[in-house]
C-alpha cells in the first residue's frame, strides 16, 4: 500500500526547500555573483540548526548525555514529545542563528574579493564548501561521518505525526513565499536594473556611480542568510544530517534548475526547480521498485535527471520560461 499523501507531503516539502535555494541563486546570477558554493551556506545553516536542536535541549534539562549515542537521541525524542514551547523556541532560535551565521560568513568571506572578479569569488565559494564539509567530517562534536541524528521536529509534541508533517510543510512554504517576495521585489526594481548592469558590465555600473563590490556583498549576505535558513529547514525536516549531504553536486543541481528555467527568470527558475526536484525525488522512490542490478540506483537516477535536462534544453534552449520584457514596471 503506497502512502500517496505522505509521498506528496514529503515531495512538496522537498521542492519547497529547493525553491528557496534556486530563488536565491536566481538573484545571485542576476547580480553577477557566481555562487559555486551554495552548499557551503546550506550546510552551515543545517549544522547550526542541528547543533542548537540537539545540544540545547539536552543542556537545558541538565542531562550529560551525548546527542550521538542512543541514550541522548532517546532523551531528545522524549523531551520533544512533551515540550511544545521548547521545541518551537529551539526551532525559531535555529532559524535565526542559521540566517545570521550564513549571512555573516558570506559577507566576511567575499567582501574582500568581489573587486578581484567573479571567477575568484566562484572558486573561493566552491572550495569553502568543501573545506567546511571536511571540517564537519573530522570534528567530533559535530558527529564526524555519522553526523547528527534525532534533531527534534518542532511539531513532535503533536499527537498525530501527519499533522506535524503538514504543519512543517506550511512553515516551509511560508518561507518560500517570503523568499519569492524578496527576490522578485529586488529584481523588479531600480536596484534589480543596477544588479543586471553590474553583471553585464561592472565597469559601466561603476561609472554610473554604483559601488559594485559593496552591493554584491550585501546581496550575497542576504541570499546566504536565506540559504542558511533553508539548511535549518532541511535539518529539522530530515531530522538527521551528515557531511555527505553537502557536496558540490548539490550546488550544481541548483544551478541546473536555474539554467533550465532560463536565466533572469524567476518563474522559469521555479519551473526548473519543480521539474528537476520532482524527477529527482520520484526517481528515488520509483527506482527501488524497478529492481535493476545492471545500473546502480544512484547512477540511474542521475541518468534520468540528465536526460530530462537534455530534452528540455534541446526543445527550449532559452529555458522553460525565459524572461521577456524590461525591468521597469510602470
Amino acid at each position, binding site marked *: 500500500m503506497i502512502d500517496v499523501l505522505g509521498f506528496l507531503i514529503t515531495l512538496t516539502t522537498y521542492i519547497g526547500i529547493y525553491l528557496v535555494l534556486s530563488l536565491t541563486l536566481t538573484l545571485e546570477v542576476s547580480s553577477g555573483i557566481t555562487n559555486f558554493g551554495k552548499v557551503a551556506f546550506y550546510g552551515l545553516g543545517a549544522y547550526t540548526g542541528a547543533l542548537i536542536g540537539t545540544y540545547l535541549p539536552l543542556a537545558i534539562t541538565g542531562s550529560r548525555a551525548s546527542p550521538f549515542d542512543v541514550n541522548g537521541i532517546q532523551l531528545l525524542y522524549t523531551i520533544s514529545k512533551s515540550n511544545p514551547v521548547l521545541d518551537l523556541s529551539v526551532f525559531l532560535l535555529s532559524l535565526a542563528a542559521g540566517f545570521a551565521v550564513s549571512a555573516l560568513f558570506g559577507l566576511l568571506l567575499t567582501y574582500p574579493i568581489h573587486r578581484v572578479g567573479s571567477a575568484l569569488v566562484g572558486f573561493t565559494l566552491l572550495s569553502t564548501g568543501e573545506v567546511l564539509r571536511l571540517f564537519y567530517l573530522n570534528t567530533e562534536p559535530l558527529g564526524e561521518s555519522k553526523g547528527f541524528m534525532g534533531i527534534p521536529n518542532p511539531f513532535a509534541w503533536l499527537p498525530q505525526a501527519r499533522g506535524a508533517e503538514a504543519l512543517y510543510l506550511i512553515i516551509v512554504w511560508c518561507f518560500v513565499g517570503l523568499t519569492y517576495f524578496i527576490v522578485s521585489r529586488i529584481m523588479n526594481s531600480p536596484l534589480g536594473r543596477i544588479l543586471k*548592469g553590474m553583471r553585464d558590465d561592472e565597469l559601466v555600473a561603476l561609472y554610473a*556611480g554604483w559601488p559594485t563590490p559593496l552591493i554584491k556583498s550585501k546581496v550575497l549576505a542576504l541570499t546566504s542568510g536565506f540559504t542558511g535558513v533553508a539548511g535549518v529547514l532541511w535539518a529539522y525536516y530530515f531530522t538527521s544530517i551528515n557531511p555527505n549531504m553537502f557536496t558540490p553536486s548539490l550546488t550544481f543541481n541548483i544551478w541546473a534548475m536555474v539554467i533550465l528555467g532560463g536565466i533572469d527568470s524567476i518563474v522559469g527558475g521555479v519551473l526548473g526547480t519543480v521539474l528537476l526536484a520532482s524527477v529527482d525525488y520520484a526517481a528515488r522512490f520509483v527506482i527501488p521498485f524497478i529492481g535493476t542490478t545492471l545500473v546502480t540506483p544512484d547512477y540511474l537516477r542521475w541518468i534520468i535527471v540528465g536526460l530530462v535536462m537534455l530534452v528540455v534544453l534541446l526543445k527550449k534552449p532559452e529555458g522553460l520560461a525565459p524572461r521577456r520584457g524590461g525591468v521597469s514596471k510602470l
Partner: protein
Amino acid sequence: MGVKLIVEKVTKRFGGVVALNRVSINVPSSLVVGLIGPNGSGKTTLFNVVTGYYTPDEGRVLIEGSGRVVDITGWNPNRISRMGVARTFQIPRLIPSLTVLENMLLFYDYGSCASITCSLRRKWVNVEEAAVARAMSILREFGLESIAHKRPAELSAGHLKLVETLRGLMSDAKLFMLDEPFAGVESWMARKLTDTIRKINREKGSTFVIIEHRITELLEGVDYVYVLHNGSLLAEGKPDEAVSDERVIKAYLGK
C-alpha cells in the same frame, strides 16, 4: 554649477610605452572645451586617468568647485562619478540585457531608493517616474522615442553611439567628459548634440571636455581646444588658433 578640472603633470606608462607624458591641463569652470590629437596621442588614456579607470604613475588630478579643491587622483570610478563627473566611452558600452530606456535609467541618481530596503518596500516609484520622464524627454529631443524599448543588439551603430552619449547626459554632472560623441552620427543629430551641450552648459553651468575627430563639428561647439600628440600637450588655444597652429597641422599630416 560647474567645476574646474586640473590635470597636473600626469604621466602614465604601459610597460615601455609612455601614453601620457607630464600632461598639464587647466579647464576653467563652466567652459566647453575640445581635446583633439591624432590617433594614439593619449586622449582616451587621459580620460581614463581623470575618471579613475587608471591611476597615474606621476602627477595629480584635482577638481575645484564651490571654493573647494579635491584631489581625486587614484579614486575609484564610482567615487569620482559621485563627485559629479560623467564619462562616455569611445566604443559604446551599453548594457546588453537592458533596453535603451533602462540603460539611461541606470545612470540616474536614485539615491537611497537604490537600496535593498527601498526595493522591498517599493518606495522607488516616484523617483522612477521622474527618471523615466527625464530619459524620455532626452530621447524625444533626438527623435529616438521609438527605440526606447529596444535592446542594444537591435540598434544600428549610429544609434548605439548616440545612446551612449545621451546616457552620459542623464546625470546632473558638473563635469562631462564625452569621448567622440559625434562619431558615426548624422549631421543634424550632431548639431542637435552641440545645441544640447550648450544648453546644459548655459542652464546648469556644467563643464564639458569633448574628445573628437570630427573637427568641424567640434569647433562650432567649443570655447577652447587642447591638442595632444604622442602623449604630450602639443598646443592649446581658441579653436581657430589651435587648429591653424603649424605644429598641430604637422602632427596630423606628418609623422
